[in-house]
């Protein structure tokens, strides 16, 4: 029978880093087993979604510049609002958030 071995290099979608998969020998036939994981809580799904979005964000080479631009933009608007007697707390928070994202 023809066996095809793929290189794992083309397989992971989220990690473009070397995978050291060495060839082993003399290992028994695999056991096919059911998953042991329990059903996760809803907040676990939220956590996973956030993690995945964060990983995608890190792949966006422009994101740091985007975040910095937003931080500057909101800081400038905060000054404008303050100068006109408005409440600029939301804008200052926004500027701080995107400043931290830009680091």
């Amino acid at each position, binding site marked *: *029978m*023809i*066996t*095809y*071995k*793929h*290189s*794992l*290099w*083309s397989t*992971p*979608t*989220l*990690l*473009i*880093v*070397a*995978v*050291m*998969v060495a*060839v*082993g*020998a003399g*290992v028994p036939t*695999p056991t*096919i*087993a*059911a998953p*042991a*994981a*329990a059903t*996760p809580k809803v907040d*676990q799904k*939220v956590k*996973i*979604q*956030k*993690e*995945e*979005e964060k990983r*995608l964000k890190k*792949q*966006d080479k422009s994101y740091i*510049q*985007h975040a910095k*631009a937003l931080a500057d*933009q*909101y800081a*400038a*608007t905060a000054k*404008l609002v303050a100068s*006109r007697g*408005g*409440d600029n707390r*939301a*804008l200052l*928070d*926004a500027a701080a*958030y*995107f400043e931290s994202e830009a680091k």
Partner: protein
Amino acid sequence: MFTIRKLMGILDGNTLKKVCVPFIPIAMGLTLLGTPVAFADNAVNLKVLVITTGNTATGDPNIGLSYIKPILDEMGVRYDVLNSATQSLTTATLSPNSCTVGTAGCVGNYNGVILTDTDLAGNFTPSEWGILHAYETNFHVREAVLSGYPGWYGTYRDTADLNANNVYLDYGLATTATNPVAPYNATWTIPTPATNTGINGADNKTVFEYVNTANPLLITDFSFAATPRNDNQGPRDGTIPKVIQLLNTPKGEALVSIIQYYKTPAPALPVREVLLSSLNNAWFLTHSQVLGYEFVNWVTQGVFVGGRYVYMSNHLDDLFLENELWDVTSKKTNPLLLYRLNSADISNAVSKQAAFRAAHPTAGSTFMLDFAFNGAGAVVDPLATTLVTNKTDDLVAAVIANKSQFRFINHTFSHADMDNVPIPANPNCDYPTLSTTALIQAEITKNRTIWTQLGLPDQANNNRVLVSGNHSGLRDRKCTDYPELHPAMANVQDDDVPFITGANPLFVTAAANAGVDYIASDTSQINQAIEQHFTVSNKKVALTTNNTARTMSPRFPTNIFYNAISPDVLVSEYNYIFNERFRTLGQDPCTVAGAICTPRNYQEIRDAEATAAVQHMLSFKKYPHFFHQGNVAKYDAAGNTLQFDWLDSVFTAYEKLFKLPVKNDPYYLIGDKTKDSLTAKSATIKAVWNRSTNQVTLSANKTIPNLLVTGVTGGDIYGGQYIRQISVTTIPKTFTVNQLLTQ
């Protein structure tokens, strides 16, 4: 759903008379009011203007443009971008010779305006805001704002204007002092048609109709929250904004709203409308992808060149071959551990497929897996001159018996590598190469012979598509493919020559000779996540605009690895790749891009995969996801498989967000659509919507056989809208607008 009232809803009283006279006959019959009068001065191009802030320091577009541009591109919507940081908006930008409605022959340049930021980072002068709002009012063109600070009354005042009311920008909202803390669930409050009788064009049949609004929308990034002021104050043009909240924080504050501007006194119909989001939107956020379509659809009033569908096709490569498996003990792929599907797996897959269809209505009743097969594994002797299929083989017999339950794709006869022959010769190359076009072509045609012998369905159509082994032939791996054979290399892909320089001209020539139109690529590889035509020119592979050349048809990989057949194997390998091996090397995976901080269990992996795949679906890309034959192995007594676990997780997540049916197209049809899309993008299209006659006139500088247009009579009804394929030529053709939804 678009209604007559919706169209009328954006008009002021005077213009309403102009539009309704010809519009009523379309709805009620031409005999009622006689031949409609053509008002050539009430027309707009079907094109969107995107106004962004840009980033002059880095030359990089802003986050909102990075978000909306792929959506516009994927749908085939025509648009221009104006960078407010470097370009001024003038009346001539918006209409020829600054003409206005009422000028004979005047056609507004845009039928929708999208702003990436609420205040465009201060780049617009008060005068430019005035020009924009005047155009929107005069031409009855809507505006969408993707993100930003919603403001408060008094934020944007023209200091040069000494009038008492010098506010030039006002969204009718007051931003709350405290921003919501993400993640949180936002709730939908879109009025129903029955309850919105006082509101025009802002009910759940006209906006976000495709969204499953019964469920909250998870917001995972920054947002401003605001409350409608309803204080009878407005901008200096004399209008009063009325806010209709659509999506809200848990406290009921507005996140996404429609703002309708009314003239006073006694407002009847709004003179201008804005769809405003104060959420941070970006391409990598799921909530942004849920909202994305409506920013385009709503501003264009549901009439635009282009269209969108949601797609999901799953390819299982290597049918009839066996794959080596991951060894959970040694944490390596073990050549002694092998798996090839058997008849029980095939029968189980048929049952699971039926159960999947029943459980997920959006998948439809005909959802099918596609097997990309290698005939060498289905014959008595793959080296024989005359190939004979081994019909007594358990798997081969099962596939023949169930061939109507699946689709099939040519994956070459033996899964041969199609990369360039190394020069100079390299006896230590990780993979053998084929030195002539004829040898490569034989890999394609021999598999067709097996297709015929097995009697698999739909061969003629599928002869036009090819999935090469390991997507080889499109990049040059330079003989280094297996990390274990090259311990000195940090990454065996470091020396790869990507597409197009690394593509093998022998392979492309062989595919052309064999009549292959569409060649599969892997979106995770450089330059392969692009729909494009390519050919051989001067013995090299080159891009071309010639649509009779080969067309790249990208496929998404997943993290359901080829060498995993059960959850425990997958969990072991997944956590090794993304976490453990970094710890083994003394690194902190939390600091490595793409790695995960903590290992995941099977359910968490499924959730992560669902997040990624749903984002792919919501991008409207047609690309299939590819797997391998072992992924559909039955791993427990209940008949569960990694493949159907993945599908179930993905569709469960999708159906929480969207209501749209999912297209499950065969690969050749995806190729045809890709070709159509490329043809449309290469053309200069003229599309004008004459609101007086309520007709769209289309022409192009060359023939476009299947141009997608949304909002004209005929074609598919999808998501409650007409999406029609139209043959467009240099000769203008006219089509009746129909935003009315029938379901």
